[in-house]
């Protein structure tokens, strides 16, 4: 009953004209961002975040959520029509989606992606409605030791999922944590790494870093790796969007499997929508009786990853809302937004801000429906976006990033610092240092350090608190195992390699 009551309250908030408008704007903007190669959801949200200082947080978060899952829908269009993924989460869609387009079934590929995303999205919202409050109730038992353990586990999981080179993931995380320590220490009041620069005493604002590392860095990287694809020729009529009976039979269970994989990956800290779509595609291929069809235009190869990325974009909100721990770069940027609005996500959020939580959850039903309709009827409009000259687009990103950085403290020092972080982000990507761990370290740094210090203050500096409390011990053990995984993998690889007989 509580659930229905909360949902009713949520709809009474999300169905207000202003929130429908924000949801529509978010979905529309997300769809455009998804279509444009090189710009992802974290960049879009990071650039818009500073402009929502004065907006009602519920409306703003509804819009940002719309952008997040809108991007997952939008990226499909370019993946299918020009074989260039608009978004990293739709890379797998290129493999079969583009092949379908070449065979004249672009409409069916886009249609199954939209329908699959809608089914996965709606199903995930229903599970999220039941799962997130339960997770929040469980998390009410958390103290500083558990929060430190959880943060440590999130960082640890990043080393498993975060990139090709775990050591670089570790460096990136440590750099993010270090950036979070800059400024006045809230316990002792001592300045740390401020070097008597007054602008650094308050710390380096995450908006400045995010605008640089996602916005400006993306500009440099996109210019360098500018991907050009050719639009598949031919007109798409409304009837081309309908699936044949055989296509529907082939894709329906792929959608279900993709949704389940996506939901599960989304709730894991450091999971994210890209990993979800990747695992769903591989899973589907392994599950298929005809794996040889994958890569040649198999509709399951579109349905499964598309369902997975949408399911993950919904379930990723569970750890964010219930624990205050982001599971992906986009939710990490959103966490920064919550902090900016003075709201702390976590178990108490469901009690202190039920309007925000349930307004957001219910808005996802509306957003997914809007996106389904957009993707079935407005595809030509979004394809037109690809004709915007690249130089103008890059200019817009720099403008938004500059204004965003400036609004934090109304000074140009932050604008320059933003540019510096842009260069850092660009170089990190070139040298294959993952950026997500830095952002996660930055956003969770204060929580991790404060929890660590609070926990050790309780015990007078005794570290046993992390192992004597069962939940904390579980998190710490999981973190240790996660950090050891690359070492174990390395050792196993060494053992498996055949010994070369020198004699």
């Amino acid at each position, binding site marked *: 009953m509580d659930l229905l009551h909360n949902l009713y309250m949520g709809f009474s908030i999300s169905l207000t004209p202003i929130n429908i408008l924000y949801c529509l704007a978010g979905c529309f903007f997300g769809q455009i961002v998804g279509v444009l190669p090189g710009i992802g959801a974290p960049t879009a949200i990071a650039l818009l975040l500073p402009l929502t200082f004065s907006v009602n947080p519920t409306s703003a978060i509804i819009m940002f959520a719309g952008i997040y899952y809108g991007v997952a829908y939008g990226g499909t269009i370019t993946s299918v029509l020009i074989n260039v993924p608009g978004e990293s989460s739709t890379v797998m869609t290129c493999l079969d989606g583009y092949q379908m387009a070449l065979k004249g079934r672009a409409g069916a590929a886009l249609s199954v992606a939209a329908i699959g995303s809608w089914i996965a999205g709606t199903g995930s919202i229903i599970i999220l409605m039941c799962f997130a409050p339960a997770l929040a109730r469980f998390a009410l038992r958390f103290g500083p030791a558990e929060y430190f353990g959880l943060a440590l586990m999130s960082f640890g999981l990043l080393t498993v999922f975060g990139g090709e080179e775990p*050591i670089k993931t570790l460096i990136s995380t440590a750099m993010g944590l*270090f950036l979070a320590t800059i400024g006045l220490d809230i316990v*002792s009041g001592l300045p740390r790494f401020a070097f008597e620069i007054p602008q650094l005493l308050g710390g380096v604002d995450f908006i400045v870093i995010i605008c640089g590392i996602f916005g400006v860095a993306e500009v440099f990287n996109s210019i360098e790796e500018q991907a050009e694809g050719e639009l598949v020729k031919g007109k798409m009529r409304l009837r081309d969007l309908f699936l044949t009976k055989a296509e529907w039979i082939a894709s329906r269970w792929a959608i279900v499997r993709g949704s389940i994989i996506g939901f599960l990956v989304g709730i894991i800290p450091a999971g994210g929508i890209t990993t979800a779509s990747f695992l769903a595609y591989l899973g589907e291929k392994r599950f298929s009786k005809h794996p040889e069809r994958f890569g040649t235009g198999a509709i399951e190869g579109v349905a499964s990853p598309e369902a997975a990325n949408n399911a993950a974009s919904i379930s990723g909100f569970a750890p964010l809302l219930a624990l205050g721990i982001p599971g992906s770069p986009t939710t990490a940027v959103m966490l920064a937004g919550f902090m900016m609005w003075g709201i702390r996500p976590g178990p108490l959020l469901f009690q202190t801000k039920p309007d925000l939580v349930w307004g957001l959850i219910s808005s996802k039903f509306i957003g997914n429906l809007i996106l389904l309709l957009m993707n079935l009827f407005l595809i030509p409009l979004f394809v037109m976006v690809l004709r915007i000259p690249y130089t103008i687009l890059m200019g817009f990103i720099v403008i938004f990033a500059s204004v965003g950085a400036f609004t934090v403290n*109304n000074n140009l020092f932050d604008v320059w610092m933003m540019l510096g972080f842009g260069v850092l982000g660009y170089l990190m990507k070139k040298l294959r240092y993952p950026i997500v761990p830095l952002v996660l370290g930055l956003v969770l740094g204060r929580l991790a350090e404060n929890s660590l210090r609070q926990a050790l203050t309780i015990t007078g500096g005794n570290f046993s608190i992390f192992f004597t409390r069962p939940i904390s011990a579980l998190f710490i053990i999981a973190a240790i195992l996660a950090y050891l995984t690359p070492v174990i993998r390395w050792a196993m690889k060494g053992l498996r390699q055949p010994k070369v007989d020198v004699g």
Partner: protein
Amino acid sequence: MWMFFRRRVKLKTADLVGGLVVLLLGIAIVFFSSQLPYKTEYGPGPGFLPLWLGIVLIGSAVFVIANILRKHSTVEAFLKPRTKQSGMMFILIVISFLLLPLLGFAVGLAFFTGLTMRVMGRHGWIACGLTAMGIAIGIHFVFGQWLNIPLPTGIVGW
């Protein structure tokens, strides 16, 4: 000159420099955090976490450097054919940011867009000028008037 650098700078060299920078950063963090109290009466002090982060950075950097030196030489270049354009974009941003106090935000960023279109997109002067004007008006009204962001004004008064 550009081609010389493109051929000479390999990814391995750049990776090595990256590792050394991380190593130096780690050393600097350890040095500066050792000047902060490591422990207080109630528990860890402000120097506790940064010190350990510095140690982690040093250890990781040593591992990265050793790994790079151990690997066989790769031919992969660090500078790509379009890296020059990225560098050009950086220069254009720096020029525009330097002009921000003089031109103000709206005009300065509009100037940046026009300049980018002209230098990097090879668009015509009229298209660049009109777009820049539109951008200046857009920034002034959207950010300055509608969102009430107190953007610095320049000689134009915007």
